[in-house]
């Protein structure tokens, strides 16, 4: 199974001590510029630069990061393929008839748009990776509290957070035990095995929930939950650099809005 939750990596990131607000501003800023960009150029610049920040400053293994880039690939390629075939404009580059009734056509416009979407996905995903791999959610909770998100929302999120890790460990154990007794070896019975695991996990979860209630009561639970611990230090220069970086990206976005692979504008 071997899942690696990004959270564990974020806890040991080289950027752990930068104030979460700075990291969020950088990450979200890049995402927004990426999505708003009209040329593939800016998202590509964002993807490359923010990946460098993640890998170099955040001290993430290069090989691990490269593997991450495959996560969005499946969805991205399929969806972009659809766009390339249905959003035709401009010169026809390729046309073929399949099954006799379906004509697939690729045009310069559709390639341009496909390129743009693909670059946006990678720009956005790399920025998202940056947030995931450098900012532990535990710190985002504190931030959310400061932003006056409703208490019950934050409390619920914190509890879910805690239980994700507990249940994950259990799920992994159960799965391993099943594999050791030759479960999942054949297609037949796999669904049954999976259901059994999920069911057993559900029972475990339910029992945990009941125990949790007792534990909270034991510690005088009175409807209060959230309290902030220590935060990363707020570092002025980091914020300044972030804003400078975002501003230059914004500039590039505006300057490059007409640059396309096949020239021409997207309408």
């Amino acid at each position, binding site marked *: 199974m071997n899942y690696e939750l990004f959270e564990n990596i974020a*806890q040991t990131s080289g950027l752990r001590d930068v104030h979460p607000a700075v990291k969020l501003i950088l990450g979200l800023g890049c995402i927004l510029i990426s999505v708003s960009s009209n040329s593939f150029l800016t998202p590509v610049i964002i993807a490359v630069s923010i990946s460098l920040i993640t890998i170099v400053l955040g001290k993430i293994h290069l090989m691990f990061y490269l593997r991450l880039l495959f996560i969005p690939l499946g969805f991205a390629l399929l969806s972009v393929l659809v766009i390339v075939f249905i959003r035709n404009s401009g010169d026809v580059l390729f046309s073929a008839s399949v099954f006799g009734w379906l004509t697939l056509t690729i045009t310069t416009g559709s390639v341009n748009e496909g390129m743009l979407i693909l670059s946006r996905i990678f720009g956005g995903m790399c920025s998202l990776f940056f947030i995931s791999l450098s900012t532990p959610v535990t710190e985002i909770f504190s931030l959310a509290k400061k932003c006056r998100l409703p208490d019950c929302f934050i409390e619920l999120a914190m509890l879910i957070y*805690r239980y994700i*890790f507990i249940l994950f460990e259990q799920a992994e154990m159960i799965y391993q035990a099943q594999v050791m007794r030759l479960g999942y070896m054949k297609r037949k019975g796999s669904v049954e095995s999976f259901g059994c695991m999920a069911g057993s996990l559900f029972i475990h979860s339910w029992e*945990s929930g009941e125990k949790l209630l*007792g534990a909270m009561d*034991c*510690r*005088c*639970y*009175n409807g209060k939950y959230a309290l902030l611990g220590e935060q990363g230090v707020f570092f002025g220069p980091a914020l300044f650099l972030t804003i400078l970086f975002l501003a230059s990206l914004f500039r590039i976005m505006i300057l490059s809005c007409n640059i396309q692979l096949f020239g021409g504008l997207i309408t």
Partner: protein
Amino acid sequence: MNCILELTDLEYHYPNGPKALESVSLRLMQGEKIALVGPNGAGKSTLLLMLNGMLRPDSGTVRFRGEPISYSRKALMNLRKQVGFVFQNPDHQIIAPTVFQDVAFGPVNLDYTEEETKTSVDEALMYVGLTEFGRRPPHNLSGGEKKKVAMAGVLAMNPDVLVFDEPTSALDPDSARSIMELLDELHHAGKSIIISTHDVELAYTWADRIVLMDQGKIILCSKPTDAFSDKELLAEAKLSKPVLVELYDALCELGMAKSEKIPRSVLDIVGILGMEHHCCRGCKAPGFIVLEDADFLNEDLAERIVHDEAIQIIGGMGSVAKKQAKDYGIPLTYTHGVIDKCLLKAISGQNCLIITSGGMIKRVLSRVEEFNAESGNTIEIVTFDNYLHNN
């Protein structure tokens, strides 16, 4: 001594279940260490859950400082502040996403101010030795560390009574030892402690009083040496004798030991055998034990300790002493079971230094005195000041 918690004729059965407790009566005195011992399903946990009102008995009363518990929300909250409960599985107890937040859970719900909360959390974390762990999420701590976080979460509310359900279960020996030492320290700080365990050896050496339970009933409540020498009762509770008691019985049966005092440690056995064979006493000149208060330790003293050649063994007791020793670079030979080990070394002719603080100093004095009286040895204790003067 005051009675802190008193259970009278408790009866309890879980909904749709068989009886879990049957006419259970027990008194926990101020400053006492009690161990509930019995097989799984004997009702140990059920009994513990009665102590802070988590379960309400079908009949019988639970008294806290003489007053019967009222099960109103407010009274319960007050009770639970004073009777801290540490669960067997820390994963069931640790709620919040970071260590700091989790330890702060109790104080926050008790409406401490932010300042007070911070102080009590910091203190509790220092006590368990996890000061730098505040920002870490609990899921990547080790089992022993999680247990300590769970303890800190309870200590932050500063309860008088501490209830531990299986404090050492699933821990490796090193973590288990450090948890038990923490319990000892808490005990010296004046807390009353009640634990449940099925580790016979642990209960035997740790507790003031042993409560044997089986099938929801208390079948015996007495001093450890009495509790673990009753073969029939042990068999009933499906427990075995501690190794040392078993050895002692075998020796008695063979006529190789006659002492009336049942041994509680390796030291005791050695003492008994020594008395019997007149070999341990006198054949070597015994060493002495130097006692140093960790609170008065400074760089100069530490220097002298490290370079003093007459002292072969250095033991550290309690978190303060260990921290000090580490800070001043004093290498500790023993960090657990210190008194007995030093006594053993002393009777074989080596000189020891024990660094400790607070109430544990008295403990050292009384234990050595007791040992001397029982075994006929004459191990001397000197304070470090006197030791320096004499040399």
